[in-house]
């Protein structure tokens, strides 16, 4: 969802933040969690686990929204998410593509 300005009650609104827990030694490197994370939070790490696979790690700071999809799609019981401290709404979360309003557009096109 995108808005053209920050909501007025942005400071009161908490954003759900999840904490990703990765049980690295259980991972078999199928990459399902990395591929199907809706917020693309996870990425493949460069380290090996004891089985020789690359377990995922949470690459994006605070982007996990605790949807639990990685937990349900992991065949190995190797990842789970707990709800963390709710964060605040940031401008980057809301203002994706800010278009000028109609009056401003007309002003630019035709002059005053």
């Amino acid at each position, binding site marked *: 969802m995108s808005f053209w300005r920050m909501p007025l009650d942005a400071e009161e609104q908490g954003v759900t*933040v999840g*904490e*990703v*827990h*990765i*049980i*690295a*030694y*259980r991972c*078999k*490197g*199928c*990459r*399902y969690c990395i*591929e*199907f994370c809706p917020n693309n939070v996870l990425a493949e790490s460069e380290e090996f686990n004891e089985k020789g*696979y690359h*377990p995922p*790690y*949470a690459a*994006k*700071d*605070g*982007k*996990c929204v605790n949807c639990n*999809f990685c*937990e*349900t*799609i*992991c*065949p*190995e*019981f*190797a990842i*789970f998410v707990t709800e963390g401290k709710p964060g605040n709404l940031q401008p980057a979360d809301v203002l994706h593509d800010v278009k000028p309003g109609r009056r401003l557009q007309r002003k630019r096109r035709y002059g005053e």
Partner: protein
Amino acid sequence: MKNIFIDAPPLTPDQAKLGRSKGYGDHPLDKYLKEGRIPHIWCSGCGIGIVLTAFIKALEKSGADPDKTVVVSGIGCSARSAGYLNLDTYHTTHGRAIPFATGVKLANPELNVVVISGDGDLFAIGGNHIIHAARRNIDLSIICVNNFTYGMTGGQGGPTTPVGAISTTTPYGASEYPFNLVYMAAAAGASYVARWTVLHTRELRDAMIDSMSKPGFSFIEAISPCPTAHARRNKLGSGLDIMRYYKEKSYLADELDRDETALGLADKIAIGKFVDVEKPTYLDMYNSHVADRAAQAAKKKKKKKK
């Protein structure tokens, strides 16, 4: 965000001797799994673990009593899931999961009996049992993990192998028509029939909740990738490639059409809930038709004797 990697200390020789699992209890769902059995044997990218997770989540969400839930399975990769669950589970002989489950249900109708097994176990060796259990409408929930092959024995062709698929017993491509599992279950008289792929984890979980609460025979087909035996020979790619294919080619079907729900090799997949009807179960029918009348006949006999 801080990264939370959980790393368990290695097992001591004493623990290893007792068959303990390293780091058992690290995952919140571990309480539903038997210690000493995890990690499981399924290959990287196998979908059976996802079906097992969905089942545990369904058990958790539906609020069903784990002490009154029985999981029965036959033989095969997916049938091993019964051995991993920390419930009352039975790993029966090949193809005989449904007769065993029928016996459990009829002996103690209070129990919530679930059968988790594969396509080869339920439809090839146990093919006769599933149609008769569906015909009688016995109150069972069947979860059939369909991976189109006999995975555990090395990828032989089975009754669900699509036409043209290469397996160890069909090196030039399968020439037989496969079963249409959902259509067959519905035709045999099941009161709940659904099909989801393992990518649709939440729908699969909700279907399991529905099937467990539904009185009558309910059948769920979970389409799962088999990267080792089926996909490798048919050049379908890794498990991830098959999941992408599920995402691309699966669509929600409105009704149970025979040709539309048929599955081919790398063909489109019709998913959804196909049948959901209310029907008296086997025990209801037995009580109303046989037990009551037998009691009345016994009363009449007593009167005559007097």
